[in-house]
């Protein structure tokens, strides 16, 4: 009986810890943030809760809205009640540094949406890079292997757009940049 009771207690504590972890994920997601495994462990330790061995398997299995992403050297969690997968992946890219963030965003837009994106997009929320950081990242890309496809198109209003040559041909990207920046404003 004693053994069963201890087991029940342990199970109860593990369940509570798992629920607390899921609540933390939802809370952070509603604030637009991912949560790492280490952050979850720290929180549980702060609250003197034991982190169950199976916690990180249980979280997505037992909570329909909780999802795991891997990258930036860790695993991260988000709740789809408050955040789409695409937004969560963007936050993960932010953690992987500006080069990945810029390049993958540009590639996704060129491939899935067939459009270049304005450079200033990356100075706005949720990217929040400075213009200089974006320019420095582009300069670094031009010197480093693996980013050769990232290219620049300028409009007649001197606005710089970025696109991936792997998905958009140069003339096409230039035409689209002019249309998006100048054409649409003059064609309201």
């Amino acid at each position, binding site marked *: 009986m004693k053994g069963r009771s201890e087991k029940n207690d342990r199970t109860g504590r593990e369940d509570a810890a798992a629920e607390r972890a899921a609540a933390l994920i939802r809370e952070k997601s509603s604030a637009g943030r991912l949560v790492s495994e280490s952050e979850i462990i720290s929180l549980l330790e702060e609250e003197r809760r034991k982190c169950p061995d199976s916690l990180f398997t249980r979280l997505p299995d037992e909570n329909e809205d909780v999802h795991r992403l891997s990258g930036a050297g860790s695993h991260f969690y988000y709740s789809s009640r408050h955040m*789409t997968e*695409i*937004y969560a992946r963007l936050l993960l890219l932010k953690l992987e540094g500006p080069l990945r963030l810029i390049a993958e965003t540009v590639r996704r837009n060129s491939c899935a949406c067939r459009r270049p994106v304005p450079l200033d997009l990356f100075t706005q929320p949720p990217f929040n890079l400075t213009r200089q950081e974006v320019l420095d990242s582009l300069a670094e890309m031009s010197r480093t292997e693996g980013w050769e496809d990232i290219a620049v198109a300028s409009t007649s209003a001197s606005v710089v757009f970025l696109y991936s040559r792997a998905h958009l041909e140069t003339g*096409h990207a230039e*035409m689209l940049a002019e*249309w998006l920046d100048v054409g649409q404003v003059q064609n309201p």
Partner: protein
Amino acid sequence: MKRMGMRGYGGWAGKVLRVDLSTGRCWTEDTIERYKAYLGGTGIGYKVMWDEVPAGTKPFDPENRIIFAVGPLAGTGAPCNGRTAVTTLWPTCWPEPLVASGHMGGQFAAKLKYAGYDAVVIQGKAAHPVWLMIADQKVEIRDARGIWGQGIRGATAAISGIMGTDAVVAAIGQAGENLVPMSVVMSSVSHSAGGVGSVMGSKKLKAIGVRGSGSIRIEGRKEDWEKLIKYHLTLLGANNQHVVPNSPQPWAEFDNPTSRWNASPGRSWGASAYPVDTGTCDPRDTNRIAYRSNNAAFFLGDIAWRYTVRGNGCTSCPIRCHTMLKVPPVTAKYGISAVGQNTCTGLLFGAAFFKEFPDGPRGMARLEACMVGMNLADDLGIWCNYMQVQRDFKKLYYGGVVEKKLDAREFRSYSWKKYEQGDPAFLFELLPRIAEKKGELGTALGQGTGYMLERWSLSEEEWGKDKDLAYWKMGHPRHHASEDSGQCGLLINLVYNRDPTCHAHTNFLRNGLPLPVQKKIAAEIWGSAEAVDAVGEYKPMHPSKARMAKWSLLRKELHDSLSLCSWMAPWAASPLREREYRGDVSIESMLYKLATGDDKDRGELDQIAERIFLLHRALTIRAMGTKEMRVRHDKIPEWVFTDKSGRPPYTKGTTHLDRNDVQTALDMFYDELGWDRATGAPTRGTYRKFGLGSIAEALAKRNLVPE
């Protein structure tokens, strides 16, 4: 409070107010008896024009009518119901004036209904300047000699002083008084209907003031109506029904940098009493729809956020497409109010005259030019013709035409250096001269493109070769034509007598959703995913494109007749992921049915819309005196077929079209509409099908119906 309604129908107020300014007589007609088959708005406008204005009438003749008409949804709780259609003979339509409509937002439509009227039809010409006072059943033609010569703001204030702050005033400025064709009527000092100010001026009608104390009866059950309105609100996107945000948001699967949904955490109304952060604006939060769009920031750049006070707009519209700006430096610099408000072309009015600005294309000088432009144009009552006057001006000046056409004294009277340097003060020299018809340049620009070209012996054909100039035909520019919407946009632009102001097609194509999602929805509405292409990746003509074009133009007429905003409606897509981004193309009929009690479904309302547009076509054919519309009317400018890059049509990176393919498009479009392929004129059978047999007979007597 009295409640409107007629013969068991809700929605309509029940009366059309008639005013003859020549005789001073005012009387009313029964809306249901005379106009129910045409709903309201442009439907009433075209019907009056057909019945009462014979071919050959000129815009400024006393026999011409100007019809301010609204529909059964105006003044109800239906979202986006603030539009008044203003129909008349269009003074800038070249080489001959033909019927067209302008559309005025604000609160005028609702007030007119609350006063008990679905329309005001003005005819005749007053002996001296007058304004029309409508205060419920009390209708008076009042002396306007004291306000003639004043700008729109002054006239509005004066009439509001007489009628009270609850009244809405639609007034013309000096441009309209001086019979400048490029003039507007404007309600609540920023909501304009372009092109009609001079028609009011020709009748010596300075303004209409409306005060109404009634309400509109909703025929359906209150709880059903409230449920429907709440459902409708969930389908709304941002301005122009863009349904994704322009930057990534936690709730959004998709974003598009050119969406007008530009709310985001960190973007604030910087000039409000305290900064208001627009936030993430989750689409399920219908209480924050008004934060989604900041049109000043969209059109003028990020600099506008700092000077934004708030959004403003029309009756029962949460979109608030007019952005109120407060730019204190312009008061000291130019002696104008620091506060101004408008939307799209109204915001751009001043800036669009300039080629460049000293601090770049998105800087402070451009913003100041916008403030100066709004201050002047919205008081003088000048129309931009969808910014054609600004494009014309730049081409004429930089092409050396202005210098050639003006005598040396007049040319020197302008500060051209200021102009070239992008100094907004130049607008104080140019715009008042347009409104006053002062000098050769002011007079020519005020006539509208077609008559200006004729006056200066310039070729319309040449004007139609320049894609950047955006000129289309008959004195007017393209408005979401092939550069934007491929064959569908081209077809819609062919059939109107001014720029078509149709957004049903472009709102869908620019809604921000990825092409595969758009194609899925398009297949459900227009029968094939082939209906839509991406800009710069057009494909040859397909029957579904003709269906989309027909559907779009019919929905435009339906919205203009029901009084739903054609800049927001229809709601073919929505921001809702759980609906897979589908909107609801039956929302118009659901609203109509509950409001009026008239049990018509989507298809039946579309048929009425087709009747209305058929009447527009019949009016055009009768006035032109020919059935050869394909050749004589539905003309296409050369720029549609050319591309500087030299790429072949229907390849990536170009939007130009193939000539043979466009002829196929016309064939398919005419087939869809039941019009004769050879002439582009509706057949007798088509007129009869839509209850317009008598019109077919009248036209047939003049050999204007194809055999």
